[in-house]
């Protein structure tokens, strides 16, 4: 980590005119990210999770093509073949590989399309939360004083909200949609990121290389962007990976409570909610969407753990204290 900073100072000293002569040329430099990637590649569990996540992304992108291949759209109802004579869902078979739901739709097709919503909401909400959190946290930690007090207290207020209750109130006022789900999740997550980033920046700003940059006449904005932010990459990557499953579960919970993405758009959460009436006779209707949700969150959580070990052993403590 300090290596980057040393390069930074060297570059500024030399006016960016060329490589430092004293640097040994024979040794190939590897950035911390390259080192981390090398460590991560040795971790079998993390690599398996990465494969699962890439597959999930592919499923989300090609959801329509996949369901075309299967031959059943996510919202197509098969009243004769898709429902048992007594009106209950049909069990898994050659027709519906993962069984049917309570109105004769293909559970597999709906799970495939649900991947889209889950990943979209998970990734976009996390990205928004991380951007806001990093900006606010860096500003608070870097400037300190009154700015810090104001921003930290604001984050404290956000963290004191009964967030699920307030989230469903927000959703009910704006009427449920994918956009509002993303917004609400980001709204109640950014302060967590902000608090962690602030703590990190507080210690980074006391480092010698920041002082060096300042004595060379670098402005606040430049110091934050060039000297502080690169040191936050590791914790941000780890925390983002761990926030994605939280956001996915948050979305599923909103959908489960009937305040997420409106029906008939399939999401794992509303499939599980819909299964409540019949799952005692039709376990597949509950189990397969639950499994999709579980595998996805588990993959992100395991990958986040692996990334933490690979990127920066120190980050582990920061997260444990959240």
């Amino acid at each position, binding site marked *: 980590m300090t290596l980057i900073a040393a390069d930074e100072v060297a570059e500024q000293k030399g006016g960016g005119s060329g490589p430092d002569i004293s640097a040994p040329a024979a040794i190939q430099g590897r950035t911390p990210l390259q080192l981390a990637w090398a460590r991560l590649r040795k971790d079998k569990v993390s690599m398996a999770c990465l494969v699962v996540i890439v597959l999930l992304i592919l499923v989300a992108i090609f959801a329509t093509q996949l369901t075309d291949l299967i031959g059943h759209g996510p919202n197509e109802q098969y009243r004769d073949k898709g429902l048992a004579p007594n009106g209950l869902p049909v069990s898994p078979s050659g027709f519906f590989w993962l069984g049917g739901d309570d109105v004769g739709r293909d559970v597999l097709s709906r799970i495939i399309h649900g991947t889209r919503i889950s990943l979209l909401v998970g990734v976009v909400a996390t990205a928004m939360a991380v951007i806001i959190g990093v900006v606010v946290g860096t500003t608070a930690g870097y400037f300190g004083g009154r700015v810090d007090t104001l921003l930290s207290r604001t984050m404290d207020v956000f963290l004191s*909200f*009964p967030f699920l209750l*307030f989230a469903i109130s927000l959703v009910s006022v704006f009427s449920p949609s994918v956009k509002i789900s993303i917004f609400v999740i980001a709204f109640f997550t950014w302060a967590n990121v902000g608090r962690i980033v602030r703590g990190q920046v507080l210690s980074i700003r006391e480092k010698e290389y920041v002082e060096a940059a300042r004595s060379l006449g670098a402005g606040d904005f430049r110091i934050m962007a060039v000297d502080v932010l690169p040191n936050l990459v590791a914790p941000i990557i780890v925390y983002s990976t761990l926030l994605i499953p939280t956001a996915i579960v948050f979305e599923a919970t909103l959908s*489960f409570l009937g305040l997420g993405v409106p029906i008939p758009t399939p999401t794992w959460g509303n499939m599980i909610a819909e299964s409540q009436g019949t799952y005692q006779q039709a*376990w597949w209707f509950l*189990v397969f969407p639950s499994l999709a949700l579980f595998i996805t969150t*588990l993959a992100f959580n395991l990958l986040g753990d692996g990334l933490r070990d690979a990127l920066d052993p120190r980050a582990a403590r920061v997260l*444990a*204290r959240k």
Partner: protein
Amino acid sequence: MGRFILRRALFGILVLFVISFAVFLLFFVVAPGDKAGNFCGKGCTPERLAQIRALYHLDQPWPSQYLLYVKRLVLHGDLGYSFTNQQPVRAIIFDRAPATASLALGAAIVWLSIGIPIGILAATKPRSLRDRAATSFALAGLSIPTFVLGLLLIYLLFYQLTVHGAAFFPAGQYVPLTQNPWEWAKHLFLPWLTLAVVSAASYSRITRGSLLEVLGEDYIRTARAKGLSERRVIYRHGLRSALTPVVTLLGIDVGTLLGGAIVTEAVFGLGGIGQTAVQAVINGDLPIIFGTVLFAAFFIVVANIFVDIAYAMLDARVRLA
């Protein structure tokens, strides 16, 4: 210490004001629509509408409604009356609180007695098979959403057992403790288990991490060098300071749950604060929404203050300023 508590309490009151104001803004400024009209129902006459508006002060501009709300709350502890059934909101909350409190406190006992021992087992033999098993349990628990686990437990421990003639666990509903303690515990068993398994994961993880850190410190080496037994070193010397982050997490978790365990209550139909709140949101019953949000925020604020105090008492290195 006294000054610290006072300052935190004042900030806590400020937080409650901000939150109540935010909820008011949300429902009166952002949300469109006629609040009174929704509750007038069919055959609504202009007189009745005016009556409702006057009764709930909906005829006034929202800032004076907010002031009135705060005034009544501060002076009389009055939270207003429900739109749907005209009962006082405070009575409704007190009526539903025992179910939520039974759920939250019972579950906390269960998850502590699962989570902490697993964390200790893992930390005392790091990188062993049992450590890896504990870590896997923690990650699985962290990854399973509460409502999924709740429904699966209902399926396995209620439905399947009942089908096979061993109906032991009811699938929900709340029986007051004062009415029948045995039925109370029986009805809460599955909800407790659900919340506990989901939460025990983070507790075992935190216990493990913090105990590992503490066991590497100098005073532990001193204790071992004195010839104390390993048991004594771990339980008397190590665990005491290792449990500080556990107390922090416990305070915040219990505080959050006391304000309404929305998901668990919904899955098991416990009729606590959380379920009341969700129903109020769906019905647009503003007084109940305001009341439950404030009630929940109150517990979060109190839990935060409590956690800071407990932190200082458990860990001699922390000084409150």
